[in-house]
């Protein structure tokens, strides 16, 4: 077990370094943004930065209003350290990020960014979590079956159908589903806000389920194809190995051969894919959520970028990166448990 413990320790150090890297990269990315977007020459860096990040304070004939807005601007400038040097700003930013103090919305929403994220995250986890699990369960199962019956009708038709659906653009499939729902039931799709408006208890949950169904279906259908494909490819590779031939020659039932011997060895790449998929839960489904009006993080990101809401963008960037990093880390550790060959290398 010594090899495993060292492996885990190395991984932890490595992840910590990467976290710091990510935080720093995030900072520099948003520091550079004002310059990439055509900052007029002649402005100092701070001016560019201010014009980019701070809300407009237009001229107003109401002196009080102007002073008030100017006051706000100064306050924000102080908060973000806009009048300081970059070094000071970086320290401020670092401290903020580590305490999850993401600041306030500039353009898009209202109030603290952290609150928006906390509000939106559960919805995204619900939608993407359920659809990722569903697509993997179905995809792995079908993949194993198809690999076993390679070349036969079942395999070919599964391949054709799943791949075709996998290739459909998400919003296209979403529209098809909505049209389908309308032509079958005569009812338009209701986005989440509408379906849970002023409902409590059982109504609330059934409203969620109603609005969840179509996006869940769309995402699952899209993702099953690639899981199926990967699983099938890897299984085919493994099934051609000699020990499978041996197991069959021994007279073991096909199911044991498939699931006990073949599947175990095929699990590594599929496990990698699954870990990545989970990690991408928070960052994914921007399009799906936007199309269905699902109030999750994907749509929040989209709105933040469209509205140039930088504190939100910055916070989301960090959150997603850290999430993915965490999951990759966990995946790597479990790697070590699953494949004894890896940890001893």
């Amino acid at each position, binding site marked *: 077990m010594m090899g495993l413990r060292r492996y885990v320790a*190395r991984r932890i150090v*490595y992840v910590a370094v*990467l976290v710091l890297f990510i935080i720093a990269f995030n900072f520099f990315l948003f520091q550079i943004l004002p310059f990439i977007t055509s900052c007029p020459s002649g402005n100092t860096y701070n001016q560019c930065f201010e014009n980019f990040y701070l809300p407009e304070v237009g001229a107003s004939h109401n002196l009080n209003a102007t002073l008030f807005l100017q006051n706000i601007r100064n306050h924000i400038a102080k908060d973000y350290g806009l009048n300081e040097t970059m070094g000071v700003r970086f320290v401020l930013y670092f401290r903020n990020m580590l305490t999850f103090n993401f600041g306030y919305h500039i353009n898009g929403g209202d109030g603290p960014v952290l609150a928006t994220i906390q509000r939106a995250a559960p919805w995204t986890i619900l939608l993407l979590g359920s659809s990722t699990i569903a697509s993997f369960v179905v995809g792995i199962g079908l993949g194993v079956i198809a690999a076993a019956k390679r*070349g036969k009708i079942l395999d070919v038709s599964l391949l054709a159908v799943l791949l075709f659906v996998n290739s459909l653009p998400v919003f*296209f499939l979403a529209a098809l589903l909505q049209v389908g729902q309308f032509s079958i039931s005569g009812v338009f799709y209701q986005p989440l806000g509408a379906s849970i408006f002023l409902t409590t208890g059982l109504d609330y949950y059934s409203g969620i389920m109603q609005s969840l169904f179509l996006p869940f279906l769309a995402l699952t259908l899209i993702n099953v194809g690639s899981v199926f*494909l990967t699983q099938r490819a890897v299984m085919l590779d493994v099934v051609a190995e000699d020990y499978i031939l041996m197991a069959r020659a021994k007279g073991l039932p096909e199911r044991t051969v498939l699931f006990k011997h073949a599947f175990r060895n095929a699990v590594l790449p599929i496990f990698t894919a699954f870990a990545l998929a989970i990690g991408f839960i928070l*960052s994914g489904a921007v399009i799906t959520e936007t199309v269905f009006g699902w109030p999750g993080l994907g749509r929040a990101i*989209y709105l933040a970028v469209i509205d140039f809401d930088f504190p939100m963008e910055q916070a989301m960037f960090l959150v997603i990166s850290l999430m*993915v990093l965490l999951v990759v880390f966990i995946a790597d550790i479990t790697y070590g448990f699953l494949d004894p060959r890896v940890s001893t290398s």
Partner: protein
Amino acid sequence: MTGLVIIVFFLLIAALAPILGTNDPIAATVGAPFDVPAWSTIFPTYSKLPVDQHPINSTFATAADTGSWTWSGTINKSVEPIPTGGPIGYSTAVLVNSTVSPTANQTNDPFLPGGTAFFTMSRTFQFTGNAPATFQATAVLQPIEMQNVSTVYVKMMIIDPKGNNYSLSSTQLSALNFEIAIPSSGNGVWKEVVVSSGLLPLSGIPVYHNITNPPAVIFTQPGTYNFTMQIQGVVAPNATAPSINMRVAFVGLYLRGSAYGVLGTDNFGRDVWSQFVWGSQISLLIGVLSGIGAVALGAIVGIAGGYLGGNWDEIIGRITDFFLVLPFLPLLIIVVTLLVGNAALYRTIYVWVILIFVILSWPGIAKIIRAQVLSVKERAYVEASRALGSDTGHVLRKHILPNVMGLVYSQVALNVGGFILLEAALDFLAISVHGVRTITWGLMLTYSLPYAVHNPNLSYVWWWFLPPGIAIALLSLAFVLVGFALDSIFNPRLRQR
């Protein structure tokens, strides 16, 4: 095999786009909005729809053509070639010299108060079937030196079999559309007078205050209709010998039905087939280049990391993980939004888009390939091979690569499709990196989506909505099929079964 066929089909369409898509996908309005494809009129739902007709299409090139018009007024006319500098596409015109007597009656036409009719040309045509969705009358004219006339207008009319006279020219909107500028001397400027009914926002649309659907009001029954074009001018009270000289190069009347072309029209009446054909170019370009780039980069890094192991693997792994955790879509959206805003980068924007796709996607591929390489590396025969003294190159070539290439090809296949989809998704999110005058499949889907989802009476605009979506899916699928075929070629163990 099937995949190759599909890919070749789309490649051909993309390459031949200039020939196949004869209509300008953005600017040309070829039909009424939401025309169904012409071939779909065989279905009962659509069989009653009016089709396009061109009852009048006169270029005066033949004697029969010129002779079909009935002229009135005091005129001398002759057909002659148009001198150089004329409008493109027309070679002959009727040169008309028309005079009126100074005491001729005024028309008392509200269209041109104080105007006198100089000459008219009219022609009858047969109309059958249902009323068209829209119609359009066009005339291409050139004024030549005129005498003692102050304002010249073109008035177009349609007279239905019952004798009702409908004036297509209207004073309600800018009368400038119908006014011919009088040249100071010699040949004047060619002018195209266009009168259009219906929903299309062209200039000079006559506004019928009490008529909501002009074509339905005018074309109520089959029969013989009369189209008349009259030139009116304002003559000064005591002028001597007022005259108008004019060349008429073209007169046309188009009745646009509700069925057009291979794939119908979109909400502005533009040809969907042309849009489809031109859109294929960009999808293919970005998808293929990004896919190849990303997988090439990912495979190299993955194989290097997996095979070298040890410290190299650590370093490569760290770099890979760093790129991996960068959130894909948000970063993409941010960078693209910035690119679109920066005018200097606009010309090379496709290159940037491909670069960003590659940079953001190679880590995932690298990780998968590395996993496979690790798995292969630890197999007994590799160890045996190394024990026998094979060098790195040999082991790579003979053992590692063959077992990895299959995965590489399937990754290429999957990813090209993914990039085509991603590009369509960017279009849908309205972060399009394309100029105003380009159209892609993603944009087609974006525009048609609102009409498709909520409009059962428009049949969910299936002819506009389905083709791009299905095309994207088919193209992606095709690449995957090709990937499979390659897989079975390069992976000998798969072949045995």
